[in-house]
């Protein structure tokens, strides 16, 4: 889960999950192309709440240079105190990895 500068609004920082890296081919949800190969130097990010998320399905792959930080823990509210595990939802796995 990473924190990046929004490509649409540079003043805003958005937090999304990294779904695919450069070279992977993935199936998109609501993007203008059904299958996208992530170009070199870019990544594909998605929010966990599909359909209600302003993510790569809206603005396409983002350049790695816009990445700012990685979210590792939730600190507040105390009842949601937890470590955020890097977990890829099984239905969002890329169709083909570049190295395979």
């Amino acid at each position, binding site marked *: 889960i990473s924190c990046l*500068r929004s*490509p649409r*609004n540079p003043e805003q920082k958005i937090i999304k999950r990294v779904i695919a890296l450069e070279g992977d081919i993935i199936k998109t949800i609501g993007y203008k192309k059904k299958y996208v190969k992530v170009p070199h*130097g870019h990544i594909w990010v998605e929010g966990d709440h599909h359909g209600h998320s302003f993510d790569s399905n809206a603005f396409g792959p983002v350049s790695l*240079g816009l990445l700012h930080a990685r979210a590792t823990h939730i600190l507040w509210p105390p009842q949601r105190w937890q470590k955020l595990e890097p977990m890829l939802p099984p239905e969002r796995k890329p169709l083909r990895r570049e190295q395979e």
Partner: protein
Amino acid sequence: MLRNALGKTFRFLGYTVQYGCIAHCAFEYLGGIVVCSGPSMEPTIQNSDVVFSENLSRHFYCIRKGDIVIVKSPNDPKSNICKRVIGLEGDKVCTSNPSDFLKSHSYVPEGHVWLEGDNLRNSTDSRCYGPVPYGLIRGRICLKIWPLNDFGFLRASPNGHRFLDD
């Protein structure tokens, strides 16, 4: 004797950390000296010219059309590229090369800028990889430092015809 040496070492380390933090803040938020390489900005900036770039414009969002900026490369985040801003968001830009017969235009999307090198024939810029997100801009070049016979502010674009006014 040992305590003296240890005390001196710790003081030295303390100063190093302090100056390191100040230097980092200065480079990140104020500006720095950059060595440019490549032919894509000739004749304004030649290969291995040294320029001074300031980062205040980026943080206050006052990059203007015609500024020369340093940008993180969209295809390779480890390298920086140096180009001129031809269009801001909402501007109409000419996406075709000067040698093309049919001219094609498009509008720069929200939150992006259109970059072009001054040496239009030998420059990979937005005409190749499209509009670049504003968040990738690192700083604005304001002064050329080396070579000394060309010291001073940078010239205006030799390609004035690429700026399409509304």
